[in-house]
Each structure stands twice: as structure tokens, then as C-alpha cells.
């Protein structure tokens, strides 16, 4: 008995040693900054000297700040690309799941934008959206459509960013769907066919429910990622776009914190954003729980 416990204690000691790095990293680079950030949000922190407690003032100002609302609106607006991307990716995955020749090549081609650096992609699309010589307008000109100066126009800058985001993320979502589709047992479709179900019915009653966990995963991760959109905006519209119409929340936080040194105020905004993401994610989990089913 005694030797067992000694063995166990040795094992435990090694185990703690092996997980020490991530645990210490978690404390230093996540816990301490998180607490620091929460405290900072209640102060007039400017990074130089003063860090006096000012209560809820920052939060009150955040909710009075029209630029905050504007950047929040822009961020949510740009998430419209998520459902578009999901539908397109599912269609592509269904097409690729037929096992036609060239499947692997298509998979690689569709995936290239995903692995490409977002900075390089943003530079490329900024040039593609050029009003006079850009690829997009030259393509539209084939159909006799005169395209706008996409990034200089308040009504087109967000759709332009959405199109680019869908293009960049499509391959990733498609790949997740493809993996999910391949794990659906063939016998399900065969059984449905015997029961007289047509292609649409078996898609609606078998495919969609079977890929639902992946859809859920995609929606959750896309919303978390979409809420933090920054690089595209920083590269393509360095000033936040015409009349600030493409500035995202993170872009605004970044400007306030590292441009104006309003660290307390920026921390308060970051916390509001964090809370927003947390609540949205929680709601999604609740909805998912309600609608989920178990397979025998």
C-alpha cells in the first residue's frame, strides 16, 4: 500500500512538472492581463502615470460614444458574410463529395486563400477593388456594369470586405463540411431511397441534421473570429474607411489604446466586446442544446 502511494506521488510530481509550462503561461499571459484589464477599465489609465479609480465612467462613456456604436454596427454588418459563406461552402462540399475526378485538385485550389497571409491578401484585394483599374470592376465591365470605387464609398466598403472574407474563408468551411459529409453512413441514404425519398428530401432530413454539429462549430468560431476582425481593415482602409464606415470594434480599440493612449477607456471597450462575444456564444450553446438529438 505504501509503495503504491509513493509511486503515485512520483507520478504526480512528474505530471505537475510536465504541465508547468502551460499553467505558468496561462497565469502570466492570460490571468494577470485579464485581471489587469478589468481593473484598468475602471480607471483613467493613460499608460504614463495616472491610473486613478473612476468607477463606471468609462463604461458610461462607451455607451454614449457614437464611434463605438458605429464600429459595433460595422462589425456586426460584416458578419453577414458568415451565412453566405456557410451556404456556399456546403454546396461546394456536396459537389466535392460526389467523388468526381479532380476532387483533390479542387480541394487544394479552394484552400489556397485560407493559407495565404491575410496582409498579402488584403493588399491584393485593395488593388483589385481599385475603381479604375481594379480586377473587380474590369470583370464587371464585361457585363456592361460600371463598378464603384469600392473602398472609397460608404455604401460599398463593407460589402467589399464581406466578399473578400467569404472568398478567403470558403475553403476552410468547405473542408470541415466535406469531412462531416464523408462520415455520414451510406446506409442512411440507401434506406431513405428505399422509402422513396428524393434527393432534396434526403438532403433535408439526413444530410443537414448529420452536419449540424459542424455547422454549430463553424457558426461559433466564425462569430468569435468575425467579432475581432482587424487586419483587413487596417491594411485596406488605414483610416477606418470613408466616414469611419469600415472601422471594426477592434480597430477602434486599437486606435484609442495605441493612438490616443486612452488605455482605461480602450480596456472598457475590450471588456464590452469580450462580454458580447461571451453572451452570443452562450446563447448559441443554449439553442444548440435545445435542438440537439442523440443517435443510437
Amino acid at each position, binding site marked *: 500500500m505504501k509503495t503504491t502511494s509513493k509511486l*503515485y506521488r512520483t507520478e504526480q510530481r512528474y505530471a505537475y512538472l510536465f504541465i508547468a509550462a502551460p499553467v505558468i503561461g496561462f497565469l502570466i499571459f492570460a490571468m494577470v492581463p*485579464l485581471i489587469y484589464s478589468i481593473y484598468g477599465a475602471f480607471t483613467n489609465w493613460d499608460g504614463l502615470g495616472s491610473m486613478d479609480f473612476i468607477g463606471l465612467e468609462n463604461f458610461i462613456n462607451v455607451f454614449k460614444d457614437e464611434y463605438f456604436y458605429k464600429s459595433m454596427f460595422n462589425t456586426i454588418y460584416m458578419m453577414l458574410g458568415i451565412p453566405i459563406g456557410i451556404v456556399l461552402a456546403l454546396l461546394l462540399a456536396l459537389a466535392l463529395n460526389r467523388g468526381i475526378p479532380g476532387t483533390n485538385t479542387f480541394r487544394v485550389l*479552394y484552400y489556397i486563400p485560407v*493559407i495565404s497571409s491575410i496582409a498579402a491578401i488584403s493588399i491584393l484585394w485593395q488593388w483589385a477593388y481599385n475603381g479604375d483599374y481594379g480586377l473587380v470592376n474590369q470583370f464587371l465591365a464585361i457585363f456592361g456594369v460600371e463598378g464603384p470605387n469600392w473602398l472609397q464609398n460608404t455604401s460599398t466598403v463593407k460589402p467589399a470586405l464581406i466578399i473578400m472574407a467569404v472568398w478567403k474563408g470558403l475553403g476552410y468551411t468547405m473542408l470541415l463540411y466535406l469531412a462531416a459529409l464523408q462520415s455520414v453512413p451510406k446506409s442512411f441514404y440507401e434506406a431513405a431511397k428505399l422509402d422513396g425519398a428524393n434527393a432534396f428530401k434526403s438532403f433535408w432530413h439526413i444530410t443537414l441534421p448529420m452536419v449540424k454539429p459542424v455547422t454549430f462549430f463553424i457558426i461559433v468560431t466564425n462569430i468569435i473570429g468575425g467579432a475581432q476582425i*482587424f487586419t483587413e481593415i487596417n491594411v485596406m482602409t488605414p483610416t477606418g474607411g470613408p466616414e469611419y464606415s469600415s472601422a471594426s470594434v477592434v480597430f477602434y480599440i*486599437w486606435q484609442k489604446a495605441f493612438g490616443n493612449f486612452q488605455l482605461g477607456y480602450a480596456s472598457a471597450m*475590450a471588456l464590452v466586446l469580450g462580454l458580447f462575444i461571451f453572451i452570443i456564444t452562450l446563447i448559441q450553446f443554449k439553442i444548440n442544446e435545445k435542438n440537439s438529438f442523440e443517435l443510437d
Partner: protein
Amino acid sequence: MEVAVANKKSVKAEPMSEKKKNRITDAVVFIFLSFGAIFMVAPLLWMFSTSIKTREDVFALPPVWIPDTISFAKYSEIWSMGPLLSGISNSLIVAVSVTVIGTFTSSLAAFAFSKLHFNGKNKIFMMLFASVMIPYPVLMIPQFIMFSSVGWVDTLLPLIIPGFFGNIFMIFFLRQFLTSIPNSIIEAAKIDGCSYFQIFYKIIFPLIKPAVAAQLILWFMGIWNDYLGPILYLNSPEKQTLQLVIANFNASYAIQSDYPLIMAASVVALLPMLIVFIVFQKQIIESIAISGVKG
């Protein structure tokens, strides 16, 4: 009797027509996928095409995809027009050091979390995993102040050091992967007198190597393509990573509309990961597909 015959007939006749129908659908799908693929690749081809154009061809209407005079001059010019070379070496320093050391600490932790017994195992793991729910914008301001108080701003250290402590996604993934390895192997090794560290590097690590490699590549790509971290910390041009360098190319040469130069620099920033992807596409695609299904 008659019914059975009729059934037999229809069963015989059906595969023929269905096969034909399937073949037509396949052809339509193939065309649809090809058009899609053109849309996916065209912007990248255009980027390359712009980079080998002369200035007149850039502004030609209608556009030319293959310019009359193909010029690779911009690919030699870019090295002197900005700190591109130091950008590449800075990106390499960050990505290599983080992935090598971070992979070691992550896989060691994954081994402990899946195969060793200790108090609070699941609680500690859940605590670590909860950190992925904290969005980076919440942490970036205090992290910046912390690093600036030790004088690390405008060095690569804030981008490197946190990575040394491991990556929770990698730990999560490898822990999942390790569940497929029987515990009896470890028990046997213990009886043979292996130390815990020996069990890790002699038995566990070789077994999980393929999974580790795929995760390492994905992490490497993520660091190589990172933009927000570098833009916060790196100010002086010679300290910047490649992504910042090309963004600055874009900002400074777009005014002179030197698009071939900008596009050449962007191609250089993009090419390494493209090559890595093409070489390791099978492992990368598999590993992403698995992480999605498991996640």
C-alpha cells in the same frame, strides 16, 4: 408472380438510366466547380501577373493577363526598396523558435493530461481551455504594458516568449490523439524501469509524431501570417516581421502607384506558405478535417 417479374424488370432498367443521369450531374458539377476554382485562383494569378508587368501594362484597358514584356525586375528591386530580407529573417526567428519550443512543451503537457494520474487533472485542463474564450483584444493592452515595463517593446521577444509556454489548441488536439494509444504501453515501460521523461520521448513522442508535425505546420503558418501581434510591438523597420514589411510597402508605394513592386513583395510574402501547403497538403487537410469533426 407477375409482380415479382415487373419488379425485376424495373430493378434491371433503373441502374442504366440512373448511371446516365449521374454522369450528366457529375459533368454539370464539374463545370460548376471549375468556375468556382477560377474565381478562387484568379485574384492570386492577377497578383502575380501584376508583379511581372511594366507600368504601362498595369493600367492597360482592357486588362492584360500575360503582358507583352515580361519583367522580373521588380523581384530584384524589392530587396533594396524596403527591409524585406530582415522581415523574412525576423518572421523565421519568431516562427521557428516558438514552434520548436512550444511544440515540445505542448506535447509534454498533452502526455501528462492524457496518460498520467494527478489531482485536479480535468479541472486544470478545463481552466487552461477556458482561456481560449478570452478574446485577444481584452489581453493586448495589459500585455503591452507588461512587456513595455521590462523594455521588450520593439523587440521580437513579446512575440516569442508567450509561445514557449505552449499552445492550448495543440495540447487539446494531441490529448485527443493520445487517447487512441493504449495505457498498457506506458504501464509496460514503467515496469521496465523507464522514467516518465523517457516514456515521453522514447515511446509517446515517436507515436504521435505525425499529429505533432501537422499541428506544428499549422501553428507555423499562423505565426508567419500574424499581423496584429507584430503591429503592436514592432516600430523600427528593421525589427518588423514580413507581414508588416509588405503592409508598409503597400502604404508607401501605392501613392506612386508602383503596383508591380507592391505585388512582387506580396508574392514573396505569400510564396513560402504556399509551398509548405502544397508539399504537406495531405497532412494539413487531414488534420483540419479531424479537428473540425472533433471540435
